[in-house]
């Protein structure tokens, strides 16, 4: 491993904050390893996004402005990434730890005969060795795992683990050649839903609701206004997502998203271990729950025992009033 390659997830030229975090971290790691920092951007809109990425400290940006990436499930992305990795040479590959990032990572691991460490929150380089820090067993342990010296290594990185730091003098953009392969799994329909203005994993404040809200309406009438007042996003427990009150992509926890906002407000959520592992790393945790004995009491900084339906609207009012005074 000498160079560093970032896999950029994008859609129509739009990407998430994690891309910029990884592009910044790639520079630091490439310098430590004595190699180049590169990024790979694929699919419709890739060229546009590559221009934007030039304001990050990368050396080379590999681009494939290819519709097939959006038409066939993952296969073209894996091919392009493999090609880019072979062009670059021995490298550490940073992939966002998201649903599609994980899928790409497992396949690339075999293609490149690489080792993999998942859900990485920190990376250290000493000599030619790369050591990754990641929480395991639902956060019950924090492990350091070395990628043994080998040509390629892969780390799937947790969003928000690193800071984004723009800079650099404009990377070179190189087009990747299209493979002649044909692909089997075709995307017939691609639907975005519940896509709030702010991605859940990147929101500085998350207001999450659970079964205690009793239905879909309070997510609209109670949580959304509070989240908006705080400049945050709305999330949910699995109970709420399973009931169909909110789309699955708002689910936080072991089988949903992992979030690390500055402030997490849990409304009508009991705090089951599978929920806890998705939000325990938040800066401050506030819970509103009817039940003083709910498990969330054990790991929230403040638990207010009371009825969410009465408390949340009043809280939203207080915050809005305070903001009004400032502006």
């Amino acid at each position, binding site marked *: 491993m000498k160079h560093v390659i970032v896999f950029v997830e994008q859609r129509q030229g739009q990407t998430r904050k994690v891309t910029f975090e990884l592009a910044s971290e790639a520079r630091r790691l490439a310098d430590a390893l004595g190699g180049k920092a590169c990024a790979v951007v694929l699919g419709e809109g890739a060229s546009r996004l590559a221009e934007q990425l030039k304001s990050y400290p990368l050396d080379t940006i590999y681009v494939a402005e290819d519709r097939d990436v959006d038409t066939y499930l993952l296969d073209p992305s894996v091919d392009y990434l493999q090609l880019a990795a072979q062009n670059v040479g021995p490298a550490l590959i940073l992939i966002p730890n998201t649903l599609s990032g994980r899928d790409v990572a*497992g396949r690339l691991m075999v293609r490149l005969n690489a080792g993999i460490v998942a859900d990485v929150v920190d990376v250290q380089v000493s000599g030619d060795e790369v050591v990754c820090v990641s929480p395991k067993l639902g956060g019950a342990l924090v492990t350091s795992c070395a990628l043994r010296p080998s040509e390629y290594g892969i780390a799937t990185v947790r969003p928000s683990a690193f800071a984004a730091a723009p800079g650099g003098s404009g990377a070179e953009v190189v087009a990747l050649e299209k493979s002649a392969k044909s692909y089997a799994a075709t995307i017939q329909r*691609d*639907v975005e839903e519940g896509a709030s203005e702010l991605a859940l994993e990147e929101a500085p404040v998350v207001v999450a609701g659970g079964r205690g809200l009793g239905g879909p309406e309070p997510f609209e009438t109670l949580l959304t206004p509070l989240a908006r007042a705080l400049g945050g996003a709305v999330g949910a427990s699995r109970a709420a997502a399973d009931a169909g009150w909110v789309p699955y992509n708002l689910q936080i926890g072991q089988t949903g998203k992992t979030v690390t906002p500055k402030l997490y407000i849990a409304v009508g959520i009991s705090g089951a271990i599978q929920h806890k592992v998705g939000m325990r790393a938040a800066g401050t945790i506030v819970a509103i729950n009817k039940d003083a004995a709910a498990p969330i009491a054990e790991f929230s900084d403040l638990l207010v025992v009371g009825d969410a339906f009465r408390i949340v609207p009043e809280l939203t009012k207080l915050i809005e009033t305070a903001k009004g005074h400032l502006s």
Partner: protein
Amino acid sequence: MKIVVTVKLVPDPNAEKRIDAQTKRLIRTGVETVLNPYDEYALEAGLQLKERAGGDSRVTVFSMAPEPLRETLRKALAMGADDAVVLSDPGLEGSDVSATAYAMANALRKLEFDLLIVGGLTDDSSTGAVPGALAEHLGLPCVTNARKADHVDGGLEVERETDGGYQTVRTPLPALLTTALTFGEPRYASLKGIMGAKKKTIATTTLGDLGLELPVGAAGSKTELREFAPPPARGKGQTVEAADGPSGAQAIFAFLQEKKLV
């Protein structure tokens, strides 16, 4: 239709987990072994697809696990799987994801199937890399995070969860599918199922049967666990009883102000 479902045997997710300081492996003694919860969803998907395909369709569960744990698979047989195959060998101990996927793929290659269903994640190690790696080794189309699957034109039409919503994807068979928890709650084993499971076979394969070219176990692994520690503790905070809405809201607001969060 022949379906194989992979099931990992994991320590009870609700039990407290400890790591042996010497071997750096999970201490399994005294902790009950269960089917990886995600794989129960994969099995549920397999059983539903088998029922819908009808005829002589079968579901085989496959696990790579230490020999003494194999009886745990009776639960999968009681839920409705037709038989089970376990890959067990002391030489597999200490395998990381890449070695595990390599060994599993070679064992799976010996089974005939139209569809391979894999869970989305493991409860104990959670890399989520095994499904993609299996698809590569076996040269199968790979459709992940399925919440719904239907037989269409000799292939499958799958609705899958994505980071931002969902997609409909078509794939020919054979293929590899992973399931999201939204596919449907795993069924309970019926009394009849539990009785019937006693007569079903759990076959064992060993490394000797596979004739692998590359090393597995710790020697075949590309990663090495160095250190582990508990995360910084998060203490219990304060609890405030709210007499009414406004006072509860005021308590939170004051707290947020104190923390400079508003």
